[in-house]
């Protein structure tokens, strides 16, 4: 039952995820749990996993039971165990914090409580009676996988269409390697496949297969298309060698073989992608790693525990600075920045503005942008009845229905980019609604 997730070459050095717990470690940690009534950890979980319930099962050595408890709430419980910002979710809500004690290590316990089933050969879930319906899921990232898994369990045929070479979306390509490696993500996808989900890789909807065809072939469609790449900033010199999208960099690191020895790296941005990129760059041996952010520490969207990890990995934070241009001949030689500051704007609103004549030069060899992924506007705009808001996010109702009665959507394309666990919650809720609708249509026809 106790299997360690596979590791890859990319996990050498400081990039290896935390090791899975030993039985002794898990037992001691599980018994620290107070088993709260109306537990705040469960309330803090977007997929409302019964945390004290599965921890009790671990404590009493029922790892089939713990896996069922976790996976029935969150079918991607194995990856969420690794990539969730537990410090601000379940573990952040742990009452032991109020006792000034270390909160329960819920993430690692959850990995311990699921790995045996997810990465083993135990088939815990049997599909229901076949319904005869087929549903298309666009995008095999966390939202799509969660939606597809739930639909398959409910007896529907499910086909996931995914443009990438490998399934898993950001779990496979976009999370920091020290949280979860690529192989672990792929093994979890295999677990979803075993539930009866078909996945078609390298199949981009819109180019390799037409949306209209999906509408013909399938009773319903779930869009879990996520977000696009980080768009260029429009700076002079952005075409130089050494300028990259931070997400591409993270994907390259996950594939292995990235060597940053001797490099001086600047990452622009203050969110989670920026923090993952700088931390990995530092741990890959870059000579200097800078995080360049136009505002102060308090306004960074990255989580405090991730910021802490970046700092202890040797990253230097440059606040109140914005990029002006990139210099170099052929490849990057420097990032030119200017100072920024808040100025009292009209009617009391603070405005961030450049400080005049404050330009300075940061001698770097690589520049990465982590300034936010673009929305998949082109693709989404072409879909009949699917509307987006001003920020490019798909508009859905509380059941994740779009304006098109046969199309649902969830995950990053709906919320603009949040956690894996949020995407799983969306996918599952949408699946339940799709199932409800198809069954009520069936009933109406009879």
């Amino acid at each position, binding site marked *: 039952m106790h299997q360690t997730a596979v590791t890859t070459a990319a996990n050498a050095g400081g990039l290896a995820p935390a090791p899975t717990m030993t039985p002794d470690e898990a*037992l*001691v940690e*599980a*018994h620290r749990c*107070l*088993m*709260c*009534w*109306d*537990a*705040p950890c469960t*309330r803090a979980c977007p997929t409302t996993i019964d945390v004290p319930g599965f921890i009790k099962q671990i*404590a009493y050595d029922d790892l089939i039971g713990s896996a069922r408890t976790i996976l029935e709430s969150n079918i991607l419980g194995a990856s969420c165990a690794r990539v969730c910002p537990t410090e601000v979710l379940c573990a952040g809500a742990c*009452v*032991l914090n*109020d*006792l000034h004690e270390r909160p329960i290590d819920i993430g690692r316990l959850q990995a311990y409580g699921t790995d045996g089933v997810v990465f083993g050969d135990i088939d815990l879930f049997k599909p229901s009676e076949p319904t005869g319906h087929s549903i298309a899921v666009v995008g095999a990232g966390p939202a799509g996988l969660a939606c597809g898994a739930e639909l398959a369990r409910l007896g529907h045929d499910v086909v996931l269409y995914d443009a990438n070479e490998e399934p898993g979306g950001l779990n496979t390509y976009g999370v920091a390697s020290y949280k979860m490696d690529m192989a672990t993500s792929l093994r979890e996808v295999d677990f979803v496949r075993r539930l009866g989900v078909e996945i078609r890789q390298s199949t981009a909807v819109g180019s390799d297969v037409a949306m209209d065809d999906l509408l013909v072939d399938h009773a319903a469609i779930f869009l879990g298309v996520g977000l696009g790449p980080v768009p260029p900033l429009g700076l002079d010199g952005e075409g130089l060698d050494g300028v990259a999208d931070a997400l591409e960099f993270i994907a390259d690191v996950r594939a292995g073989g990235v060597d940053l020895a001797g490099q001086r790296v600047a990452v622009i941005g203050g969110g989670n992608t920026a923090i993952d990129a700088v931390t990995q760059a530092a741990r890959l041996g870059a000579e200097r790693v800078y995080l360049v952010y136009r505002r102060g520490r308090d306004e960074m969207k990255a989580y405090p525990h991730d910021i802490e990890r970046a700092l202890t990995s040797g990253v230097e934070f440059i606040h109140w600075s914005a990029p002006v241009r990139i210099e170099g001949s052929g490849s990057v030689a420097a990032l030119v920045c200017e100072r920024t500051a808040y100025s009292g704007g009209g009617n009391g609103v603070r405005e961030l503005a450049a400080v005049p004549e404050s330009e300075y030069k940061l001698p770097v060899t690589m520049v990465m942008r982590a300034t936010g992924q673009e929305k998949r506007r082109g693709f989404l705009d072409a879909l009949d009845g699917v509307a987006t808001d001003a920020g490019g996010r798909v508009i859905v109702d509380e059941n994740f229905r779009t304006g098109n009665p046969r199309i649902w959507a969830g995950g990053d394309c709906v919320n603009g980019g949040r956690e894996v666990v949020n995407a799983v919650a969306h996918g599952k809720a949408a699946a339940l609604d799709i199932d409800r609708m198809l069954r009520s249509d069936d009933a109406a026809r009879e």
Partner: protein
Amino acid sequence: MADLSVNICGIESPNPFWLASAPPTNTGDQIARAFDAGWGGAVWKTLGDPVENVYSRYSAVDLNGQKMMGFSNIELITDRSLAVNLVEIEAVKKRHPENVVIVSLMVESNPEAWDEIITQVEQAGADGIELNFGCPHGMSERGMGSAVGQVPEYTCDITRWAKASATVPVFVKLTPNITDITVAARAAKSGGADAVSLINTINSITGVDLDSFIPRPVVGNKSSHGGYSGPAVKPIALNMVAAIAADPVTEGLPISGIGGIATWQDVAEFILLGSTTVQVCTAVMHHGYRIVEGMAEGLSNYLDSKGMASVNELRGRAVAKVTDWQSLDINYIVKAEIDQDKCIHCGLCYVACLDGAHQAIGAERTQDDKTRVWIIDDLCVGCNLCSLICPVQGCIEMVERELGQTHMTWNEYLSDDKPGELHPRPKHGITIGEA
């Protein structure tokens, strides 16, 4: 620093900390090291006809990740020759004349056998002997150990034989595997015992291997019941010690208390309930002889804090505080009070009271999404459960209420001449659902 020395039936001991007759006292070398570590005395592992043991012989009960909450053994008496043991007893006493060596004995039930072995261990220098009438496994099948201790007449007769031979004090070690320990203690006393040692281990099966279906410890493809010891048995031992200390028939009979002792607090409790010395085994099997350092330091500091110059001032002070239920004050009122500043909002007290006690705690989710709990004073019967469960020290306290009630026992309440009124109890109505 308080004086820890004690005198038990004429034997002077530098402190009350003795090792019980068990694996930690198997050899002279072990006992010498134990004395070096600070143990005041040791009861030599039971001598008799040497046995052959099985290999697998101990098993344990862990609780919530804590090892050895309870411990069980099926080891028999010494497997070493009497001659070797006698030589070692002599050597230990020579090296440690100030320390107490009691030799535990178990032989077949005839006066000659007892006389012979008692004479030999006395010659070797034993300060006292302990009659092992307690061992519940193996030896009892051969008519010894608890097979003797469970029959008061046997206990009395063999004690009398031993007393007829012995010139040193005779301790009788009692088995808890009976219904009333005072009967056994009275039998020992009537046979002339100078002191009693209790409790020996409790008959037990610590668990079953869920794959092989063989109870623990697994010996080949079978197991056998063992003698249970460790922290789990302490409350049972305390009750038995207290019962003997309070029994007017055995009043004044010195007691060497045994059962789950691991800390200075445990020692203090046994002494408060009437023990003069204590004997320790399982805790030493778990952590080694050095635990005596903390016991000595802790007990001494405690006595100092109580202004007591000697441990003797502590002995028996709790005996009179144990009474029958019918003599308790039924008008003594306590109610739980929650310190909201200390509460960590785990809700454990709420669900425990709701499902397991008297439905006297309310709970709600606050606006900042925490569980707020409060005592429903009218329904609180003061049972203590919430205060026992609360994980935060000092968060839930049981507070005495002076509501003008008169002290009254159950017997007084039943009598015609009541000293006062019964204070009203919280009443819990029968409501099933909304009915």
